[in-house]
């Protein structure tokens, strides 16, 4: 594959990206999509021709969000390879960065979807807030649910970015007065069948969005339906969310050797030992963070010294807090926000109560002279004796 398209070559050059960087990047996208290396030229040429020709209509909708996922997308301190792919999206609506305001902006949102029915992509950031008839979050003078009600059936697919969009994220953590939930749950309630691709973590990793854009738009996986086969039962791409952080953790060797950090500021921490005893949720969190890493593949949570807090998990705050503890607290039926009790204490208490009850029983056995001396067995069952007496 040569530099056939001079305009594309100039686009790369303008970003300070070499052809080699670009092909390497296409290789990493291929890996994330589960494609073989032989597909790299296909991806490269798809990106190349797309970058030179058409723009794909897309809207970025913010629900109940901290805008952290938008920040994550804007993480690049210099224009990088990923932007080559993201530039092929015609992002006609994105609250944080668009120039338009007021009615014009909302018109752009509706026009983009209505004029491209069945073709536009909706990227949804943040939770779906259902509380107070949807008035927990109002956009443009209406409950924000209206955007999903009106537009979700008309887009080709929704990419739910970040844990909030996936299942409500931290917004849903108890007591959840805003009645926050995820996009796919909300659509299921409404009977809307638009495919949803879930990309959890808090915030989302832009590399995954790039991979999905390539998969959905450029390789035509959405049209062919192949994309759905690549998603797990929770609607997450299997290849990105198929293994635990623990599986690929650079500190895994320390885990197997039993070398743990028990306290921050300790010599063990300085040695980069495993953070399991500090409550790391890596063993129960399925993302490829250790491989893809963050901020232009610079580092990620565990590499920079923090235990994984499990933000790629479902209902991750209720299930993961306290983040530095091995187990969450338990309050059955209502999440951990109502105080609850520590599972370890509860288990030991049950064992303790049983042992104590047996101790008391043993005192009773001693007092009645049964200890070490089984009393005589009855001659006739009580039931039979009574029955006999009745006769």
């Amino acid at each position, binding site marked *: 594959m040569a530099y056939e398209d001079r305009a594309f070559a100039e686009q790369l050059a303008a970003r300070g990206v070499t052809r080699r960087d670009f092909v390497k990047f296409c290789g990493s996208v291929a890996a994330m999509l589960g494609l073989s290396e032989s597909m790299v030229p296909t991806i490269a040429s798809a990106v190349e021709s797309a970058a030179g020709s058409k723009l794909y209509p897309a809207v970025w909708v913010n629900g109940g969000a901290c805008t952290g996922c938008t920040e994550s997308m804007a993480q690049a301190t210099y224009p990088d390879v990923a932007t080559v792919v993201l530039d092929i999206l015609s992002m006609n609506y994105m609250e944080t960065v668009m120039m338009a305001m007021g009615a014009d902006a909302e018109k752009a949102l509706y026009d983009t979807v209505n004029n491209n029915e069945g073709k536009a992509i909706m990227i949804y950031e943040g939770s779906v807030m259902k509380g107070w008839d949807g008035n927990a979050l109002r956009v443009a003078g209406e409950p924000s649910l209206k955007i999903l009600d009106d537009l979700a059936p008309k887009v080709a697919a929704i990419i739910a970015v970040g844990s909030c969009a996936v*299942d*409500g994220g931290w917004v*849903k953590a108890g007591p959840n007065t805003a009645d926050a*939930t995820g996009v796919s749950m909300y659509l299921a309630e409404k009977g809307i069948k638009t495919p949803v691709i879930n990309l959890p973590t808090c915030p989302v990793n832009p590399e995954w969005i790039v991979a999905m854009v390539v998969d959905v738009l450029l390789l035509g996986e959405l049209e062919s339906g192949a994309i759905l086969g690549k998603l*797990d*039962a*929770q609607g997450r791409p299997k290849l990105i969310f*198929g293994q*635990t952080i623990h*599986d690929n953790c650079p500190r895994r060797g320390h*885990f*197997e*050797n*039993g*070398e*743990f950090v028990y306290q921050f500021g300790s010599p063990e921490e300085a040695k980069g030992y495993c953070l*399991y*005893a500090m409550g790391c949720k890596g*063993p*129960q969190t399925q993302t490829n963070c250790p491989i893809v890493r963050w901020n232009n593949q610079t580092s990620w949570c565990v590499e920079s010294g923090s235990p994984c807090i*499990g933000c790629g*998990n*479902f*209902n991750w705050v*209720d*299930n*993961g807090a306290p983040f530095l503890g*091995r*187990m*969450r607290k*338990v309050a*059955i*039926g*209502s*999440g951990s926000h109502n105080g609850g009790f520590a*599972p*370890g204490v*509860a*288990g030991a208490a*049950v*064992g303790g109560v*049983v042992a104590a009850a*047996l101790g008391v*029983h*043993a005192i009773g*056995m001693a007092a009645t002279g*049964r*200890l*070490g*001396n*089984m*009393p*005589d*067995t*009855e001659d*006739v*069952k*009580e*039931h*039979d004796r009574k029955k006999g007496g009745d006769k």
Partner: protein
Amino acid sequence: MSHAYTREMHPLAFVVSHWTNLCAMVFLTLSGLYIHYPIFPGFMGAARGTHNFWMFVLLINLVVRLVMGFTLKTSKLAGGREKELDIKNFLPQAENRHQLWPTIKYYLFLKKEHPLGGKYNSLQKFAYVLTVPLILLAAYTGFALWGPTSQWSFFLAGTTMVANWFNGGVGGAALMPMRIVHYWTMWAILSFTFIHVYLANIYGFDADRIMFAWKETGTDHA
């Protein structure tokens, strides 16, 4: 002293199976507690290997014990030599009929004489049969946590169910609640073990002699 203990009550195969259970429980509990929180360093790989190995031993032993229950004959009465199919000792028998309440009364000191019964009394039957679902629950929750099997839909369904149960219906497929249930299962099995050890030894150590060393007591052979 209690009643006699005969080899017909507990054949050699049961002695071996009981030893296997004991070893498995001890190793699983200790390695499991270590995996739950590695209180001292240097042992995680070994602890996980140990936990894995004895889990398979316990499960295979459970299957073997169940098969033996349906194939071997053991004595029908405590201290007796007359035999019938072993599994019948765990099911309702004529000997135990109407005896549940008297047995409870006996252990609550409301009845002086030891109630009549089969080889096992009514409460024993409940307790022993309960160990089967308890071990299966421990295995199921364990497989739901174990990397190679956690994504099998059979286990994933349980993980989701437990997570929903812990979170008012909005759990997703998070593993933390399953981890807690697995941990509690250990305490349930430990509680059974406490009671079992206590009651087996309350009248003396004859039960240990037959169960661990296959030595009869209180019989002509003793």
